[in-house]
């Protein structure tokens, strides 16, 4: 069974703290994504990666960075957390080509609260 695992379901951090959100997929997918979900705004793409050590900015990359040192792992980093980064963060992966390409598999999400 396919699996995308996010390291923390719930986090509470203080303003200015550094935050790491980890995501691991076991499907050997090339593409990995980080989205945030906010009421009325849907899922907005923060960053995505189509290969190890490669990254592309999404629609709202400001205040975030990412790391992909291994194919199965994609990390989202908040260098200095702010209250407007309180959100649900969703990691996803997908095949780059072939049957099923383009279809995203999501983790269960990480609910981050910044105080």
């Amino acid at each position, binding site marked *: 069974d396919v699996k*995308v695992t996010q390291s923390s379901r719930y986090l509470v951090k203080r303003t200015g703290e550094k935050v790491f959100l980890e995501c691991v997929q076991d499907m050997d997918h*090339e*593409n990995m*994504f980080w*989205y945030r979900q906010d009421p*009325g*705004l*849907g*899922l*907005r*793409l923060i960053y*995505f990666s*189509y290969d190890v050590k490669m990254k*592309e900015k*999404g*629609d709202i990359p400001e205040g975030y960075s990412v790391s992909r040192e291994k194919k199965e792992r994609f990390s989202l980093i908040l260098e200095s957390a702010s209250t407007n980064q309180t959100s649900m963060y*969703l990691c*996803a992966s*997908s*095949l*780059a*080509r072939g049957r099923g*390409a*383009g*279809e*995203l*598999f*999501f*983790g*269960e*999400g990480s609910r981050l609260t910044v105080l």
Partner: protein
Amino acid sequence: DQQVKQNSPSLSVQEGRISILNCDYTNSMFDYFLWYKKYPAEGPTFLISISSIKDKNEDGRFTVFLNKSAKHLSLHIVPSQPGDSAVYFCAATRRGRTSYDKVIFGPGTSLSVIP
């Protein structure tokens, strides 16, 4: 500027009736469209997709229709069941020369199926 729009934030339907969820897009480069379903506290799960070379795709109770000239797609659920109550996200992407591109989501429509 939202590239994928879902203009109805919510929809209520009686059990057994048809649910119709609508989605509009602005980017004519999109050539692959997906619908995702999301329950509270879970990640979105893939429901059904359609390529731009088709105008209809059916999977059990779910059918997606694509009208390329109008840049419009819709998801039909027949018959609707209480377990279908969830937030539905429309998403779109573009197939690059060798692989799929980032996936852009709409803001979602919350469907309530009343028993």
